[in-house]
């Protein structure tokens, strides 16, 4: 087992544990958000191990920085330290969801073990794989329409968020 593989299992396990902590923690919402930070940063480390360097940097800056801080800001703003709701009325639907989710996961994991795609390890990456130069050139040549659409989407999101969060529309 190489150092890369050990690091992958370390960060992968950390990501799963902190994701479970995020979903299962019903007492403290702030701790739940902080668990999400741990998940995002460990996924960033997994991206590094997969040699996607620019994506790893974006993961830590955008997810670990901006998005999670936004969540934390709202939790603090609304003072939602706990969520002690009355007991749910939809227990049956929820347990059906849980059973279906776990069954589908088990099927995927079993199917993965039999897939010939994973029988041989992938070949070494070519020069410049995952660097900013390659990604930048591709973004501004082949995928330039996608970039424009993303900018329009972000503009619409800014306007929508402003309208939604405003107290009264004059």
């Amino acid at each position, binding site marked *: 087992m190489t150092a890369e593989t050990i690091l992958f299992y370390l960060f*992968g396990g950390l990501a*799963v544990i902190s994701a479970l902590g995020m979903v299962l923690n019903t007492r403290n919402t702030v701790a739940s958000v902080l668990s999400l930070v741990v998940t995002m940063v460990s*996924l960033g480390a997994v991206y590094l191990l997969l040699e*996607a360097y*620019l994506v790893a940097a974006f993961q830590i800056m*955008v997810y670990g920085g901006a998005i999670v801080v936004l969540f934390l800001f709202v939790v603090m*703003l609304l003072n939602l330290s706990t969520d002690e709701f009355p007991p749910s009325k939809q227990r049956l639907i*929820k347990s059906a969801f849980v059973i279906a989710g776990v069954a589908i996961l088990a099927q*995927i994991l079993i199917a993965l*073990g039999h897939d010939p795609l994973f029988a041989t390890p992938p070949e070494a990456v070519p020069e410049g794989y995952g660097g900013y130069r390659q990604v930048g050139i591709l973004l501004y040549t082949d995928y330039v329409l996608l970039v424009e659409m993303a900018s329009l989407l972000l503009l619409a999101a800014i306007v929508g968020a402003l309208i939604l969060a405003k107290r009264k529309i004059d």
Partner: protein
Amino acid sequence: MLPMDHVIALSAILFTIGVLGVATRRNLIVILMSIELMLNAVNLAFVGFNRIWSQVDGVAAIDGQIFVLMVIAVAAAEVAVGLGILLAMFRNRDSVNVEEVNLLKW
């Protein structure tokens, strides 16, 4: 070299945790965070499969990573609008429990 089937398995596990979070929790903030977790799991699958098919005729192929950047942009937009909806809901209902929001239910 990383075991690629385990990378995809990690992605599937994280996605399932996200689905269970959306299905079982009632706090809107945790539901939004679970959606983020699902988007992250998909990103991990994109990066993993991109690592498997990392080149075409000796030239680096990184289209999967472009899609990941787009998913990150969509996630940022989704969080901005989602938290705006959460603020509006908290102002009207004084709670973030999604079971209390049933105006459109019949």
